[in-house]
């Protein structure tokens, strides 16, 4: 659905989305990289289980919440990707162990 601008020659990094290796560009936000990945990245909300995806891309709507390197409910649109980053799509409420 989203296509990168063809002339973008920014350095490529690899992130892992639910275990799947995905290419991203240095400088991407996590939310942008997820949208560009083409993977099913909808999270499910903690209360009603409704599907959500990144929306405002500027830190306001909190719809892009995602687990990054083990820390849950981070705003994907505000965190730049880093090589080797591990992303988990949140389905419902966090289960504490």
């Amino acid at each position, binding site marked *: 659905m989203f296509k990168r601008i063809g002339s973008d020659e920014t350095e490529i990094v690899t992130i892992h989305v639910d275990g799947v290796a995905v290419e991203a560009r240095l400088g991407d936000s996590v939310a942008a990289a997820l949208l560009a990945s083409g993977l099913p990245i909808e999270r499910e909300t*903690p*209360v009603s289980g409704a599907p959500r995806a990144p929306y405002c891309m500027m830190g306001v709507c909190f719809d892009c919440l995602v687990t990054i390197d083990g*820390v*849950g*409910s*981070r705003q994907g649109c505000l965190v730049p990707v880093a090589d080797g980053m591990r992303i988990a799509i949140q389905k*419902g*409420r*966090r*289960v*504490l*162990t």
Partner: protein
Amino acid sequence: MGLAREFDVAVVGGGLLGSSIAWGLGRLGQRVVVLDEGDIAKRASRANFALVWVQTKGLGLPAYTAWTLRASETWAGLAQALEEETGLDVCFRRPGGFHLALSDREMVLRRDTLARLHNQPGAADYRTELLDHEGVRRMMPEIGPEVAGGSYCPYDGHVNSLRVFRALHTAFSRHGVDYRPDHPVTAISGENGAFRLVTKRGEIVAGKVVLAAGNANATLAPMLGLHAPMEPNRGQIVVTERAAPFLQYPMTTLRQSDEGTVMIGDSKEDEIDDRAHHMPIDAVMASRAVRMFPMLGALNVVRAWSGIRVMTHDGFPIYDQSASHPGAFVVCCHSGVTLAPNHAFDLAPMIVRGALDEAVVGAFSARRFAAQDGGKAA
């Protein structure tokens, strides 16, 4: 010439307290108007810990223990009535509640408090037991090693207080309660057996008036020969992201809401500016919470806020009818959530009858302050 009475009762204040009373009055067929402040009112109804709490209430006034116990016993009925009228589940749960101690010293303090409560003449038995670490752990296996023990009271519970607030307001329309936001009352006078209430949006005339305006009762009450000495304070609350249910029991400083957030609270500051917020206070509260339940350390904090407590001088409720202006009532209480069923089911009928029931609420007259303040009390 008498004034044309538009309403049987004007309730000043549309928070949980005023709304509980107004809803109770509306159910009894009264024509009720609620005069409320606007959205930016310092509203304890939107800044509270949502406990329905019994243990340790009433030290110094045993009647308060009985009054609170009565609320705990009737809360399920209120929740059911609200659901029938509005379809909203306010999520009242009464699994019992804990107060946890993080050291032997805190355990001793708790034991002393419970003993003093128990030894009061006429104290209602609210079956609070003191448990050691093992006793607490049998009921809550998730506690950390630093928990020395705690007290457990089977009458304690909690509720979704924001939804209670919404449900009461939703139910207003069913009983013709006329809710008027942005109508702060600036003056009240009694004339020819009716009351004239001045707001910035005009005047209202009602046969009776109930002051339920929280800390603002302190300035409104003297207009009607009543006395409401208030001493507000501030509390801070920390809220985590939502997690799958893991805390079955509410605690004095910690609870998991029906929608999964964990609320950490119970600070108390003399400062009464709710726009200020002090991180060191949050840090202490969060640290204690993690010592109680180490698994909380994995949760993110998503917000923290301050709220102003409605508080009388001695912390106990005030219920009075004016001697100089019969038909004018003042109602002050800190526990607008816990006592909501009493206000709807017990107090409202007394207001309709025009007489407070001495046997039920007589202990809560502001006359008790007369000795301390040189007889200013009504």
